[in-house]
């Protein structure tokens, strides 16, 4: 029983392994050299990793099947760490003759594996023209991959190939150092590349299929090997010459000595020869980018597109947002300035994360540069993320182009989330108002109060006139007022003066009447003199004076009572004498005349102003 189980186990194991072999995908590939010369034969091989039959060849144009198919098959079994690997292969080989120069494609062939049809790949073959030298020699050398016996300049050289020699600054140049050989090169050593001082260098990785080829150059067919392929981005303007590169090739030559002994005719003897090769100098003229350069020029030269993307346009406070700027294109991607996004100043923002995904091909450097910004809004509100301008020099139109990304509006809502501690996330610390930038202030709008230029009042004629006129008016007023005051003062004086004068005048008249003895007129004059004098002296109108108030008025003027009594007595006696028919009237008149003079003179002295 135990034995049976063991057997079954072994069976399963083998079955499993065979299933594993079956499970391997079928690969059916066609192989042929990339290039052949006209009139040359070559082998086209179809290989399958299984046992196969019934190969159906497509119609092959441009080639003649000289021989084939020769099919061969084989199998191998490998034990690795106790594991059995069985591999089976089948190959079909045709020998074809290249009939005419050109590029031909052999379409896919089909084959049957386990009664299932499989399709191979198509093969492209370049048929080079007949070698000029060989045609002359009537095809003595049948192979396009010759191994000539002489080492001449024609048989082995390096050629530098540049994609263009007239470029703009930063415009890509493809530089290839290609080895052309008609001899058997065993090895290349001591490769000395020039220092590409004024260029930014970008090596191109090449695989073997790309590295080796055949080429017809100057009517001769060569095997070619790409020694070095790089992209150059000129960093300086002007004529730049690239120093020659050099290397040493080890060439295996068939020995020229023949027939030394019998075996030499069967076994060729070979000799390794070293030869130093050097490529030519290359001159490249680099043009400056046209001026004026836009101020926002990013330094990018080529063709680009810009996309922007935001993960959310409506977020809560404190939840982060990411804004991606993606520059896609071909050109000097490595050198372009990162576009800067102006995030709202209130956002907490971090250094952008820059991801470069560039691929280098013979046509230049292309790829994507992604700039990713992370920002955390700390306050609610509506914020604008403006568009980003990206200015580059477009080589297809030879002009500067500005492309802009989309602008976004982010709505930040108040946070409703309460974190686990039951504390509402809230940054409520007070902040200083931050100055974000400097610019001039905006123009004044509205009424500008525009007026015509006017003359200044200060120091003008009216200005001085103002002072002058006011001074003159004041002076006039002073003069006037002073005069007025003086006049007022004078009037009393004049009146008192006039009182004396009038009294004297009347007394003189009275004196005349005294002499003539006209009694009535005399007394009349005396009374008028007394009353008039008093009126003038007291500056009172005649009508308001009578015997009754005379004494009080005089007393007010501090006239002594005896004098007042004398005055009143005199008035009374005057009135009495005037109508009294007295005999001795002349004597009375004399007495009254004298009394009047004496009383007026004494009043003159005693009445105060």
């Amino acid at each position, binding site marked *: 029983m135990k034995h049976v189980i063991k057997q079954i186990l072994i069976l399963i194991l083998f079955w499993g392994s065979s299933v594993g072999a079956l499970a391997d995908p079928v690969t059916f590939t066609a192989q042929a050299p990339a290039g052949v010369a006209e009139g040359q034969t070559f082998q086209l091989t179809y290989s399958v990793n299984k046992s196969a039959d019934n190969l159906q060849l497509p119609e092959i144009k441009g080639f003649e099947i000289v021989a084939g198919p020769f099919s061969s098959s084989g199998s191998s079994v490998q034990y690795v760490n106790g594991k059995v690997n069985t591999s089976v292969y089948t190959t079909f080989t045709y020998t074809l003759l290249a009939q005419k120069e050109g590029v031909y494609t052999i379409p896919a062939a089909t084959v049957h594996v386990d009664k299932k049809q499989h399709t191979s790949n198509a093969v492209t073959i370049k048929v080079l023209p007949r070698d000029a030298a060989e045609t002359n020699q009537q095809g003595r050398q049948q192979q396009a991959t010759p191994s000539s016996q002489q080492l001449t300049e024609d048989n082995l050289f390096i050629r530098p190939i540049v994609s263009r020699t007239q470029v703009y600054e930063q415009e890509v140049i493809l530089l290839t150092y290609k080895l052309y050989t008609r001899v058997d090169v065993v090895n290349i050593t001591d490769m000395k590349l020039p220092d590409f001082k004024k260029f930014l260098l970008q090596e191109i990785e090449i695989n073997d299929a790309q590295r080796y080829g055949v080429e017809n150059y100057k009517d001769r067919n060569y095997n070619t090997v790409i020694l070095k392929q790089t992209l150059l981005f000129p960093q300086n303007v002007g004529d730049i010459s690239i120093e020659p590169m050099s290397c040493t090739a080890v060439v295996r030559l068939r020995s020229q000595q023949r027939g030394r002994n019998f075996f030499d005719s069967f076994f060729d003897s070979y000799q390794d020869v070293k030869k130093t090769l050097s490529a030519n100098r290359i001159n490249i003229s680099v043009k400056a980018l046209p001026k004026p350069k836009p101020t926002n020029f990013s330094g990018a030269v080529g063709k680009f597109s810009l996309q922007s993307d935001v993960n959310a346009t409506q977020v809560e406070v404190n939840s982060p947002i990411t804004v991606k700027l993606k520059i896609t294109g071909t050109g000097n991607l490595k050198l372009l300035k990162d576009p800067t996004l102006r995030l709202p100043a209130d956002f907490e923002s971090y250094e952008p994360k820059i991801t470069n995904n560039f691929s280098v091909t013979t046509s230049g450097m292309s790829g994507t540069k992604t700039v990713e910004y992370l920002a955390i809004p700390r306050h609610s509100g509506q914020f604008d993320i403006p568009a980003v301008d990206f200015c580059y020099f477009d080589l297809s139109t030879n002009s500067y182009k500005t492309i802009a990304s989309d602008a976004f509006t982010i709505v930040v809502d108040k946070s409703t989330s309460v974190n686990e501690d039951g504390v509402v996330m809230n940054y409520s610390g007070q902040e200083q108002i931050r100055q974000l930038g400097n610019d001039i202030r905006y123009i004044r709008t509205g009424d*500008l109060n525009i007026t*015509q230029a006017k003359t200044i009042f200060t120091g003008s004629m009216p200005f001085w006139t103002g002072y002058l006129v006011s001074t003159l008016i004041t002076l006039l007023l002073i003069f006037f007022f002073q005069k007025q005051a003086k006049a007022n003062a004078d009037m009393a004086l004049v009146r008192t003066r006039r009182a004396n004068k009038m009294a004297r005048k009347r007394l003189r008249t009275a004196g005349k009447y005294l002499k003539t003895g006209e009694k009535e007129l005399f007394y009349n004059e005396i009374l008028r003199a007394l009353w008039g004098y008093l009126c003038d002296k007291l500056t009172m109108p005649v009508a308001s004076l009578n015997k009754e108030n005379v004494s009080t008025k005089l007393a007010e003027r501090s006239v002594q009572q005896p004098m007042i009594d004398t005055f009143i007595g005199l008035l009374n006696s005057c009135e009495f004498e005037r109508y009294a028919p007295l005999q001795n009237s002349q004597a009375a008149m004399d007495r009254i005349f004298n009394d009047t003079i004496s009383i007026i003179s004494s009043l003159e002295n005693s009445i105060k102003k």
Partner: protein
Amino acid sequence: MNKQFLFCLALGIASLFADSVFAVQTKALQAAGHYAAKEYDEAAQLYAEIIEQGNVSADLFYNYANTCFNLERYGEAILFYERALVLNPLHEDAQFNLDFVNQRITDKIERMQPFFIISWINALGLLFTTDEWAYGSIALFVVALTGCLLFIFGRYRRLRKAAFVVGIIAVGLSLCAFAFAFAQKNRLEAHTDAIVMVGAVTVKSAPNTDSADLFVLHEGAKIAVIQAVENWSEIRIADGSVGWIKNTSFERI
């Protein structure tokens, strides 16, 4: 006939005046629109036309200066900020922008800070315009004269005393106002300050091209003109250095 003609003439002049005022307003509005649309060339042209017509206004000069700044014509911008400040020394925006532009220009000349009392007095003087000071001075003079009259002719002792005090104070104030009025007038009319308008100019030691080079001034530098000889002017910069430059290289404020 004659009366009718005069009436027509008056009407014509009035309408012409109103028309031009209206036109200027419209132009200013248009220019502001261009400025807002960042079409600075057009805005500058319109403002320049308004200014050429002999119109003055601190705000107008300020706006023109802003436009020039945006066109990177820094010399002109500084010139017109300064002109705006001459008209209105308390124009805060013009002062701010002038300081801003002065940081952009090549020459950094240390300005001497005047003694604080002097700057206070200057600030006091800027409270009113020269004409306001002049009218004030005359009014105070009249008050003083009235005081004088009252003092001489007042009937009562107390009135006379008060009139004396008022009169003396009024005379003092009138003199101060007089001084301020002339200080302001001088500031407006002196035109001694100027702005370098060319990219760079070499200041010479004498008014001819053969003389020694002293120093180089760049666009936007403020200079004071001391005297002029034919087409050369002797200038002094804020740090006190003196030299000669050609009249074509600067513009007086």
